[in-house]
């Protein structure tokens, strides 16, 4: 009886298209490294170069990681950049200007992040305003508050302990900052892949009503994700402050677009079609490698902007052709 209708059996075989899709970005990255290695002998392919790049890009990487959490749950959080700045200047003001102990300043910065997340969540989840609108608004509000707190000036003199914990302290020649990124990515990966919570977030992002009728507290999951992204952003702010040894009231927003780019680019790699932490981290370093290489070759900086944009579009294009130009589920 019952003829099998379609005949795709379950397979766990090696699949070239699948592999290309998952590791395409990594392969392109390796090719690019090799290319720059040949063009810049002795300079590019040094441990030093990579260790520096890994450390320098860590605030951006943390931000990209922060972003993918609400993105997975179906919400945009544009306020991550502003929250990063808020956290950095909170540490600056409390520790350097008001002389409070570093620990207190750090806690206050993290608490500020949580507060931003809760405010976002209140308007998005309770009042039901689109997340893009709310986080656009909070970005503007936070930017104003930061200007007020810092008088629009960079705040120097942050405790060297923070700098030691982020930049000066090294393991295998790489600043601790990088390991924080890895630790955060690992944590997100474990939660996304190996916990029920991760699956719930995914369902909330892809089918709110389905999730609700399956007994998932959709509101709570969304609130949690928004708070998590704000908290991670404020950790990003700590990393940024530790890296500079100062708190800069302006740069946070500049990290925003690259972080979005990395989050989306990352969704084409490792676990294609889903926002995923390893993809995001690899994307950040992929883009940074290109820019570092170009800069070392003495190419003017405007080229790096073009590279950034073109690499994003082309990488996603390639991944789209591998998938046969299906409409993606993300975005």
């Amino acid at each position, binding site marked *: 009886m019952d003829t099998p209708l379609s005949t795709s059996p379950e397979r766990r075989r090696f699949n070239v298209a699948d592999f290309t899709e998952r590791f395409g970005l990594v392969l392109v990255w390796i090719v690019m490294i090799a290319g720059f290695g040949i063009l*810049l002998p002795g*300079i590019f392919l*040094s441990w*030093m*170069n990579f260790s*520096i*790049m890994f*450390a*320098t*890009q860590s605030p*951006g990487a943390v931000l990209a990681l922060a972003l993918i959490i609400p993105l997975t749950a179906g919400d945009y959080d544009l306020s991550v950049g502003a929250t990063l700045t808020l956290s950095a200047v909170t540490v600056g003001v409390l520790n*350097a*200007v008001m002389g409070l102990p570093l620990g207190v300043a750090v806690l206050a910065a993290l608490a500020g992040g949580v507060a931003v997340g809760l405010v976002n969540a209140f308007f998005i989840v309770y009042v039901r305003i689109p997340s893009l609108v709310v986080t656009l608004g909070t970005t503007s509000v936070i930017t104003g508050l930061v*200007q007020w707190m810092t*008088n*629009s*000036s*960079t*705040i*120097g*003199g942050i405790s060297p302990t923070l700098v030691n914990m982020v*930049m*000066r302290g090294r393991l295998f020649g790489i*600043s601790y900052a990088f390991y924080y990124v890895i630790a955060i990515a690992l944590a997100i990966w474990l939660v996304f892949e190996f916990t029920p919570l991760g699956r719930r977030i995914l369902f909330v992002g892809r089918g709110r009503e389905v999730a609700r009728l399956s007994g998932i507290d959709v509101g709570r999951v969304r609130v949690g994700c928004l708070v998590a992204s704000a908290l991670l952003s404020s950790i990003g702010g700590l990393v940024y402050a530790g*890296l*500079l*040894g*100062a708190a*800069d*009231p*302006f*740069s*946070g927003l*500049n*990290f925003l677009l*690259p972080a979005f780019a990395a989050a989306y680019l990352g969704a084409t790699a490792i676990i294609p079609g889903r926002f995923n932490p390893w993809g995001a981290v690899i994307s950040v370093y992929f883009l*940074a490698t290109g*820019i*570092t290489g170009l*800069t*070392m070759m*003495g190419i*003017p*900086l405007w080229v*790096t902007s073009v590279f950034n944009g073109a690499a994003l579009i082309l990488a996603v294009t390639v991944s789209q052709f591998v998938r046969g130009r299906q409409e993606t589920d993300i975005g």
Partner: protein
Amino acid sequence: HADPVAEGLARATQIVEEHRAVPTFQAPGESFDIRAVAAGKKMLSIPNTSSNQFLKGIIRREIEVGKEIGLEVREWENQGQPNQWVQGIEYAIANDFDIVDLISGVNPAVIEPQLEAAKAAGVQVFTSHFYDPSQEANPLLAGDLPFSFYGQGWIMGNWAIHKTEGAANVIVVKSDEVPPTEPLVRGIRDAFEQNCPNCTILTEINVGITEWGTKIQPAVQAALLSNPTANYVFPIYDSMSQFVVPAVELTGRGEMVKIATGNGTPFVLDFIREGRVEMDVGESLDWVARATIDGYMRKLAGLEMPEELAVPLYIFDETNIETAGTPAEANKGYGDEYVAGFHENWQLK
């Protein structure tokens, strides 16, 4: 005797020493009764952006000086968008201001139609601390008080010559979009050309102001790695140095590569105290404010406007950084003799 290296080094050292001395006041012109000119006049100061503390500091002091002499000074708060500057000038025209002060940053070329409108309406638009004396001021301006950015670069160049004893290899970080950059970099180049045959500018990194936060650090790191002989980085505007400092530290070249810069921004002075930056060429905001108002009032009084904003440049390094205060303040360390000087020149009291 004909050792160009040693001679150049000697000249450089002398220039450095001159600017290490606490500055002295020199009258910008003949004495005049400033109150008589200023009484009842209104001036609108438009900064490049109100988030620039350097400019805001100047304007705050302009307002105070204005109170002393009877000139009403207002700031046009803005976020650095040219259409807000346009709105500011239109506001000044509509509300019968006498002077618009484009203080250090609003490029007159960006708002020419409004300059024409202002001229037609009898509002005098001045710039101060924007052009270098070597640059042509926009003809639509009622007057201009240029500032020697060239001199700032000149001092930075000579500082590196002096410190390296004639073997400076410099990475310059700049922003070509603002007009002061060109004379400033020319000053550095001239210093090396005239006083140091062995010094070189290894590379010039051009970063747009809006991209400082994301691009300076990686670009400087890449430059340091590809130029192992570098021993100085000049972030020509000292607010850049917050991104240069970690770049130098991360590359592990802190011992060998020093940072010299200019503007006297307080947090950079703090960096000097912490040993992360070596030198900063500063100028007194209050002095700039007074010299600016002095120049404008002279013009209103029908007197000759000074050819240059007579504000001295002063070197901060580890030897004198304590005079700037802990934490540093924008206006400390320059002495206060000039205040009395202006008072006398302006016939106050």
